[in-house]
């Protein structure tokens, strides 16, 4: 089943001289963990905004082509309708939380949708537990760390029980350890709850190992789209300027020199270490 599909999607911001994304045609299956990456300005943030209707409803501008979310035409449905199916987590943790207590923030979307108090209570507690922030639920957003704030944002989106969660560089402002914890939470949501995850990131060294599907963009266009291991082994991917994980880069360098390291491209240091031990242990 297709979660997100776009056909020849082209979008220009109001007042923009050229399109931010051109002719983007992608297909994301349900249950996928997709990584969207590319140099700054490649259009990945713009593309994300098309998935929940912020483009075209909030941003106006000129949208050509088609975008479908779970079969529904994004241009014909309001953002608040689409919010039930797709949640969007943004880059800056501080600017996504508006309530005076974390609990109330997680309930925000449900309050907007008019859920009953009992149903809200259940869902809020469920979301708080899944993201590991149940014990800080009564604190104010400003009192907690950036990593915890992002988990609140994820819980807030999770509470609406969407089939798809899109995260736009959610760990930019976080240190690597907090970032790792966020990715682990997201990975669990994908594996255990079957939620389709679309993650926009630069830090492939931390995230590539989770994704089964990667989309590389450059200057508004899609350059590569396919299985993570395949795409990251290609020389052209490195040339675009994408930050290939060092483990993968080392693998590519060694195999190009003729070293035999197995056919499966590693995406993490553990995988690479295994390959090296296999290949060199008898020496």
């Amino acid at each position, binding site marked *: 089943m297709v979660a997100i599909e776009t056909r020849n999607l082209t979008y220009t911001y109001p007042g923009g001289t050229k399109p931010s994304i051109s002719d983007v045609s992608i297909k994301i299956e349900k249950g996928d963990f997709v990584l969207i990456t590319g140099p700054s300005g490649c259009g990945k943030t713009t593309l994300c905004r098309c998935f929940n209707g912020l483009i075209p409803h909030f941003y106006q501008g000129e949208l050509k082509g088609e975008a479908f979310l779970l079969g529904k035409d994004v241009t014909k449905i309001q*953002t608040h309708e689409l919010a039930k199916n797709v*949640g*969007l987590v943004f880059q800056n943790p501080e600017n*996504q*939380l*508006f309530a005076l207590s974390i*609990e109330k923030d997680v309930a925000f979307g449900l309050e907007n949708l008019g859920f009953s*108090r009992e149903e809200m209570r259940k869902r809020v507690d469920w979301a708080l537990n899944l993201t590991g922030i149940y014990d800080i639920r009564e604190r*104010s957003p400003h009192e907690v760390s950036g990593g915890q704030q992002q988990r609140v944002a994820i819980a*807030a989106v999770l509470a609406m029980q969407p089939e798809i969660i899109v995260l736009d560089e959610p760990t930019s402002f976080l240190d690597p350890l907090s970032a790792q914890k966020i990715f682990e939470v997201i990975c669990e949501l994908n594996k255990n709850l079957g939620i389709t995850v679309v993650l926009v990131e630069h830090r492939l060294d931390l995230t590539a190992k989770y994704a089964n599907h990667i989309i590389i963009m450059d200057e508004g266009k899609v350059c590569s789209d396919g299985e993570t291991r395949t795409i990251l082994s290609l020389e052209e991917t490195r040339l675009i300027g994408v930050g290939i994980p060092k483990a993968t880069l080392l693998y590519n360098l060694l195999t190009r020199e003729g070293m035999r390291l197995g056919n499966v491209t590693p995406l993490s240091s553990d995988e690479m270490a295994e390959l090296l031990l296999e290949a060199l242990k008898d020496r």
Partner: protein
Amino acid sequence: MSRSVFDGLKFRRVYSPIHNLDPRIKFIYVLGVFVAAILFSEILPLLALFLMQIPFVLLAGVRKEWLRSLRGALFLATFIFFTNVLFRFIGAGYAILPTDVEFSAAMTLRFIVLVESFSVFFLTTSPDHLGLALEQSRVPYEFSFAFTTAVRFVPVLAEEAETIMDAQKARGLELEKGNFMKRIRNYVPVLIPLIVSAIRRSLELAEAMESRAWGATKKRTNLYELSLHRGDFVLLLITVGVLMLEIYIRLFVPVPTLSQLFL
């Protein structure tokens, strides 16, 4: 620029019987005090009203902050006192009469009672609670949302202002240098980034709100519910009782002035 100003607005989770009272009932009480203060120009009832605040202040444990706000009101209070005395002095043919001094003192006290009743209200009501009360009263949701969001971001903006000042100081900006006009201009490199940042922040907030189904239904529900408890009914009774007493006194009981009692 002192950060302590903003510290006062930072939410301190205080639990006292006064803090737990429903803000709507507290507000009705404050209005009651307001009306009572306007009813009387004599110093004795006004003194009684003033003293009536004190148990609330003590029960809520906000004595320090309350005294601080009293100090703040002192400047205006002295001004009111002397203006009243001056005009009465002139009116009485350039003579100081004890009744005039008493009357001016009464006016000053009225002002203080009005200011202090609101101060007690805000000191004993957390922003959460106030926001919740706004949401559950007839106020349109947009307004209570604007209120709670503003309160939520005050410490954030305060921190940002400090960072911006540091950044510009590191480029040689000396805020305290120069004459009055120059000093005002010195703040331009601090204000502009702050304003631009606030605008950018609003845009990001709006995106997040939209993405969480803002505007989906007109009938918005609430995770919490403010319900009235025994304490609230007690306060309501007190308010109504005191108000009725005041009205009765005003209509039927002549209130003596201090001058009549002691001179």
